[in-house]
């Protein structure tokens, strides 16, 4: 063994991070111990606090240290819109655009039979219960355009349509040509979707 047991243990622990292999773990461990023990202590404290306090928002299921996350607790948001996303990271990506003012529901996954994730694992009963609120007029399905994401969106749409409640508009994010993209470099599947989802030209 090249390192002492404790250093070795630290390097093993760091490998739980995504994208960190043995080399990176070694660099990180030596950096923290040799160059930045203060940073290491700060990391320990932050990690411990986050582990103790961060849980899931009781309403939208995103990560939050308060029972209701800041979005769900904000009464100025548009209560007629509910957007379903797969992960907290997707929620944050949409929030950064500042283009959406409604509320969210985070599935914390998507229907993926191959990974053993079924309807019961996504809190769908909780989502359907929330859709009983008459204030919600539009359900935006913002799952990823993958086979699993599409299946999840279709599944939720079917279940939502069967609810006994005032009519609900169900929408799906548009798929198509990325801004600044060039048609010649797009894959055929994206082009076909973009073509079938074309919109009437307006002079705005």
């Amino acid at each position, binding site marked *: 063994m090249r390192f002492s047991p404790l250093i070795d243990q630290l390097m093993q622990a760091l490998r739980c991070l*995504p994208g960190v292999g043995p080399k990176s773990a070694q660099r990180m461990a030596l950096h923290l111990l040799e160059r930045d023990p203060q940073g290491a202590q700060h990391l320990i404290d932050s990690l411990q606090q986050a582990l103790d306090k961060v849980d899931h928002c009781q309403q939208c299921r995103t990560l939050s240290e308060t029972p209701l996350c800041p979005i769900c607790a904000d009464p100025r948001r548009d209560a007629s819109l509910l957007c379903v996303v797969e992960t907290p990271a997707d929620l944050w990506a949409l929030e950064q655009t500042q283009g959406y003012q409604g509320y969210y529901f985070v599935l914390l996954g998507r229907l993926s*039979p*191959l990974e053993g994730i*079924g309807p019961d694992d996504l809190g769908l009963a909780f989502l359907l219960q929330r859709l009983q609120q008459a204030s919600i007029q539009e359900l935006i399905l913002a799952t990823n355009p*993958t086979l699993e994401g599409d299946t999840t969106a279709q599944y939720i749409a079917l279940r939502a349509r069967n609810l006994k409640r005032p009519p609900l508009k169900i929408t799906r994010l548009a798929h198509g040509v990325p801004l600044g993209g060039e048609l010649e470099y797009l894959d055929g*599947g994206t082009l076909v979707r973009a073509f079938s989802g074309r919109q009437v030209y307006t002079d705005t």
Partner: protein
Amino acid sequence: MHSTPAYLLHQQAYRENKRLVWLLTPQGRLDGVVYKRLYRPALVPLQCEYQGRRSLKQIRTLEAQALGVNLVYKAQVCALYANELLFRLLPSELECHALFLAYVNLLNALQEAQHHVLLCAQALRTFESELLRHLDQEVTLWQLDGQLIQSHLWYTQVEYDGQVAWRVLPESQPTVDAYLGEWIQAVVAGDWSQPKYRHTAKSLFRQRFARLLGHRPLLTYQLLSVFQQAS
């Protein structure tokens, strides 16, 4: 360097900028092969170039060869069902040319006939039949005593020494799990033309898959029951 047609069954993130992919190819299922973090859609015919052996395979290129299918509702779950079966039951890297072809045919049938319940069911039965044949679990015409079944008699399944065979029933007592010889013969011949034949095939195939799947049933069964209403 190997080059092969392939379909993507599953993918997951791996390291910072890589993916592990599971592919169905005529040479068998390739499991957890390293590929760059470039999204490739499922249900699209791909051409895959890979190198390496056993667990150290690495994909060089994985390019779409055509547009692939664009399915909705039940047809999409049927494709997912086929993927789940292949992912759970197919042994890794066991040549499967006929099964690969049955998968391609299934996707094409689902695309062309996705609002036509009967045609989708027929394509599914053909795929299931080919998969069972590949797993050495196909429905046969043999009775326990080595005799062939007869079309006018009733039979029930019995398991003996890990194999399933038929046992003839007295004509007076057809039970819930009794099948007429004619229906079994149709299933073995891949004849899905009559409702009784299709029903028999569906029931027999389900039982065989259940035996192979053990205590963890397919998740797509749950989805199919909800999507049934939208077909």
